[in-house]
């Protein structure tokens, strides 16, 4: 467990600094300008800077197997739409918004997302969900339990939790990704965390996190 935490805190630092470091905005604006004027190496720099956060985001939103495809698709869409990028906006949030849409596209295409019916299906599949949690517990892997519980909540809740608690986005950054007001973001964080808490609550004690 100590290793897990250490690995994570290193990882979080990487993700956070790559996504929203203090100089990220200025650097990104410069890279975007260079790419707009035809310098492909600037796009390579953008790609290499953001591939890890976008890949990790996609791996949890969709699946690890499809994460690479989503990452490529998101960067391709960003490359094609670079002229529409507004310099006043953070590049990272613009890119995450694109990645979010690509994830939703895949989930819709595969029939794994139906925003209206998700709650009903989730309730209906509660039995299967519990057994999946049991499988994860058998491996005694905390990360697996968290990932399994994440997959049991609706994609729109998963998105909010990932942005806030994994990628450490601020409310302002989240409002740009979700295209929603700060107040709406706060209430979505609250709702998503409450739903996630309900899923993980029965396992907290067993996986070593005491409530």
């Amino acid at each position, binding site marked *: 467990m100590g290793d897990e*935490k250490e*690995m*994570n805190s290193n990882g979080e630092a990487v993700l956070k600094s790559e996504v929203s470091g203090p100089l990220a905005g200025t650097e990104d604006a410069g890279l975007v300008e260079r790419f707009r004027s035809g310098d492909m190496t600037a796009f390579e720099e953008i790609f290499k800077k953001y*591939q890890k956060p976008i890949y990790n985001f996609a791996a949890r939103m969709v699946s690890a197997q499809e994460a*690479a495809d989503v990452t490529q698709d998101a960067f391709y869409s960003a490359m094609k739409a670079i002229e529409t990028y507004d310099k006043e906006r953070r590049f990272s949030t613009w890119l995450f918004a694109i990645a979010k849409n690509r994830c939703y596209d895949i989930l819709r295409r595969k029939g794994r997302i139906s925003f209206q019916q998700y709650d009903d299906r989730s309730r209906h599949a509660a039995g299967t969900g519990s057994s999946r949690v049991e499988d994860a517990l058998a491996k005694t892997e905390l990360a697996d339990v968290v990932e399994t519980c994440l997959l049991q909540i609706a994609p729109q809740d998963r998105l909010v939790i990932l942005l806030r608690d994994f990628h450490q986005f601020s409310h302002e950054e989240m409002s740009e990704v979700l295209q929603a007001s700060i107040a709406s973001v706060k209430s979505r964080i609250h709702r998503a965390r409450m739903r996630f808490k309900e899923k993980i*609550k029965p396992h907290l004690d067993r996986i070593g996190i005491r409530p």
Partner: protein
Amino acid sequence: MDCTEFRRLQTEYVEGTLNEASKKEAADHVGACEACAQEVKAYVASVKAMAALSVREPPPDLWERFQEYASARERTERVRAWGWVRALFRWRFSEVCKGIIIFMNVTCETATRKLQKYVVEA
């Protein structure tokens, strides 16, 4: 503050973004209500649990794969865009061929008639 009101403000309470007055009311409620105190503990624990997620490394050749992917997509999109032009050209081309054949038919027929007339007169 009652339990319903507290649970509505739970996120802000945990994140420490409540104003001083609400923060004190919430703290007093948590101190007095065992159920809400347990809820807060579970809430904090579930947020902490997210820290267990490890960072995954993308495939090392992702940039190279992306370049191939982008080229393939561009080719597909170009083919799709040129498809209309080609279809139009194909249609025009066949129309032009038809026109030439009709013209040649008419010309040949006229020439044949003229030749027949000439032979008869001779």
